[in-house]
């Protein structure tokens, strides 16, 4: 179905697209992967180099796993994408952002985390992959408010 949609979008004139019709296809294999390694493979990443040029801004302790705020910035020139992976989630790949001309390789989002886990941000630039990692502890809160 996705493929048919993509094909249809391909042949329709871009000028007449509604905003959502320009949306990218969804990588079923990568998002269905049960391990961080499989997810990375499915988005074409192998042997990402650890770097300090990709910054993960997130609290070290999250009061609630339902909402864990994460902000990622890549200072690597020519960054074209950033993927977010929560290692211990049932489906570790949370999101992949592609940055086109004009976009700063920066994103802030809220993710779910079932338990304390490493969170990785993988940036791709010039055909290479770079990774930053941060452990986030997920705790049990009080009675809410």
């Amino acid at each position, binding site marked *: 179905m996705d493929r048919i949609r993509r094909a249809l979008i391909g042949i329709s004139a871009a000028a007449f697209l509604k905003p959502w019709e320009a949306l990218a296809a969804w990588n079923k294999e990568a998002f269905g992967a049960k391990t961080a390694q499989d997810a990375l493979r499915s988005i074409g990443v192998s042997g990402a180099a650890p770097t300090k040029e990709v910054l993960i801004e997130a609290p070290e302790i999250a009061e609630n796993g339902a909402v864990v705020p994460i902000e990622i910035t890549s200072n690597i020139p020519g960054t074209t994408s950033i993927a977010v992976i929560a290692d211990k989630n049932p489906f570790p790949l949370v999101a992949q952002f592609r940055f086109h001309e004009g976009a700063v390789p920066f994103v802030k989002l809220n993710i779910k985390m079932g338990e304390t886990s490493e969170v990785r941000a993988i940036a791709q630039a010039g055909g290479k992959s770079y990774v930053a990692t941060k452990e986030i502890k997920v705790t049990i809160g009080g009675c809410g*408010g």
Partner: protein
Amino acid sequence: MIRFSKTVLILSGLALTAPASAQDAKKEIQRYRDMVAEGSPAELFEIEGEALWKKPQGPRSASFEKCDLGMGPGVVKGAYAHLPRYFADADRVMDLEARLMHCMMTLQGRTAKEATARVFGSADRPSEMESLSAYVASASRGLPMEPGMSHPKEQQAYELGRALYVHRAGPWDFACTSCHGEEGKRIRLQELPVLAKPEAARAVAASWPAYRVSTSQFITLQWRMNDCYRQMRMPEPGFASEATVALIHFITVNGRGVPYRGPGNKR
């Protein structure tokens, strides 16, 4: 309006080790709360609430646009900042939800039973009362909280709230003070404001109602009173009853004077 804050990028390269002390843990939790508050879905409920305010409902097919929240029929701006207050037409002190219920009955012609059939919503389906509360409260942002305290019934409500706050009952012998009686205490990681004191009550008056991230729900002070009594193992207090309004009035008066900056964010 979205409260937009400039993101701080410099911090992120530092402090990658696990927090070593309780002090660090506290700081990290504060950072968590600050980051969550930067992007609050509370505003989505304000949009829903505004639509509901204008939507004709009930047997009389009336909207809330003639509902008098204390500032005159239809005036939303600044209304929340003056609640709870005494309303002569009902001869009682009302908080926001009690007053909304009053308008549902008198303007829209709905029964009390129908109006309160579903006052606490779920993440999937917020209640009408919650969305309306988000909208009305948001229209008091920046204005000082000044609940009514001049009418004898307002003073009575305050005193009833004060008495309920310390009243121990139920199988676990709890009063509000069992958790909210001593400064600096917490349940799990949640700090517990001493609501009899202005400093703590101000933070509450300024930020409720609020979006609760753990359940993705919009929660109101009526919900807070209800769920506290549930956890006190008590029977259920009536929605917008004199008892719950008195407690809310007690807290809001203790916290008065602070500019309203909600709807806020809760864990």
